[in-house]
């Protein structure tokens, strides 16, 4: 029977075929059984808001499949995407642990499977299983390092073109598919969202992408972006 959004849904964490590859989920069977006992599995379409910046923490979401953007907003409504969360990440952990409002909002950008754990249950789970604490600490360390990389890019890039080049190079490393014509990227973000990732405007992103295309650094067809001259992108980046 087809599943909603064509997702391969896994309700039982112990039977999950990719558990061993996931930083948080790769725990011993008894701990994963305990995790199974407190989590609620849900499927979300693209564009679902999981939690909102400033909201009291209800709990954590384990992203089993799909992706989600983590954003923060200014009082004037300007939005910055601080991270695109990938499968295996635990969302909302720092707010849940500290008992403070969520620092960011989380919204799915693809149909996604998420396992939700209520705050009290998550804290009890950590309190009972040392291994879960260690894996959460590793996950938080990873998030901290990722945030530091963003800070480096935002703080040291001299121009917006450099920030965009850096972003495209990161995508090449993380999600690129090597082809004879160059590195192929499936871009699921709009120009507006790309702008929100590098702290600029939608107009600037559109102009820069056109410029990169004119200089034959990239080629764009629909949501597929082909990096045809990676060396030129590398040359733009000083960070």
């Amino acid at each position, binding site marked *: 029977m087809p599943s909603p959004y064509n997702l391969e849904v896994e309700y039982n964490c112990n039977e999950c075929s990719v558990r061993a590859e996931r930083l948080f989920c790769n725990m011993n069977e008894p701990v994963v059984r305990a995790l199974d006992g407190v989590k609620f599995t849900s499927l979300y379409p693209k564009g679902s808001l999981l939690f909102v910046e400033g909201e009291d923490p209800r709990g954590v979401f384990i992203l089993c499949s799909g992706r989600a953007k983590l954003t923060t907003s200014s009082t004037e409504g300007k939005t910055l995407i601080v991270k695109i969360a990938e499968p295996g990440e635990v969302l909302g952990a720092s707010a849940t642990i500290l008992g403070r409002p969520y620092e960011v909002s989380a919204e799915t950008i693809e149909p996604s499977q998420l396992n939700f754990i209520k705050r009290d249950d998550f804290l009890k789970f950590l309190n009972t299983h040392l291994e879960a604490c260690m894996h*959460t600490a590793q996950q938080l360390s990873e998030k901290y390092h990722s945030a530091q990389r*963003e800070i480096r890019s935002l703080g*040291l890039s001299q121009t917006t073109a450099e920030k965009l080049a850096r972003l495209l190079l990161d995508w090449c490393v993380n999600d690129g598919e090597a082809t004879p014509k160059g590195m192929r990227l499936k871009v699921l973000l709009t120009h507006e969202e790309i702008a929100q990732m590098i702290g600029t405007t939608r107009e600037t992103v559109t102009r820069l992408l056109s410029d990169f295309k004119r200089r034959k650094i990239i080629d764009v067809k629909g949501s597929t972006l082909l990096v045809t001259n990676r060396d030129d992108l590398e040359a733009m980046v000083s960070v």
Partner: protein
Amino acid sequence: MTVETQTETGSPVISESVIRALSRFEKAEGWPTGSILFREGEQPRGVYIIHSGEIDQLFSSRTGQAKPLLVAGPGQILGLSCVVSGKAHNCSATARTPSVTGFIDRDRFTSLLEEQPALWWSILQMLSTDINSCYDCMRTLTHMGR
């Protein structure tokens, strides 16, 4: 393991027992302004508990330009995420003002965690606070102060 309580302002409290547990094994070190605690790319030797002063966290570009983009102060622990993850330092740390830190060697810190699992909860709180500081920094860098 006991989940720590929090202050009324919401800031995490590290219990006296945790502070005692760490201070028994730390080596106090004084850092004059400008001295380097660790360099970007180095493997973590241990953690630095800041007792006084301010420590700049500097990020370098490929051209050698280095900017202090984060500042750590008393009560914070530098190098924690690197020790937990085993990854190299993402930035360099230099004393912005005369500072005093308590250094705990990586192996000693790891054995402390094995001996006293309650420390893990404090580590989760500190890492969570560090992540929030990064988000604040990102908001500042993109002129999005709240």
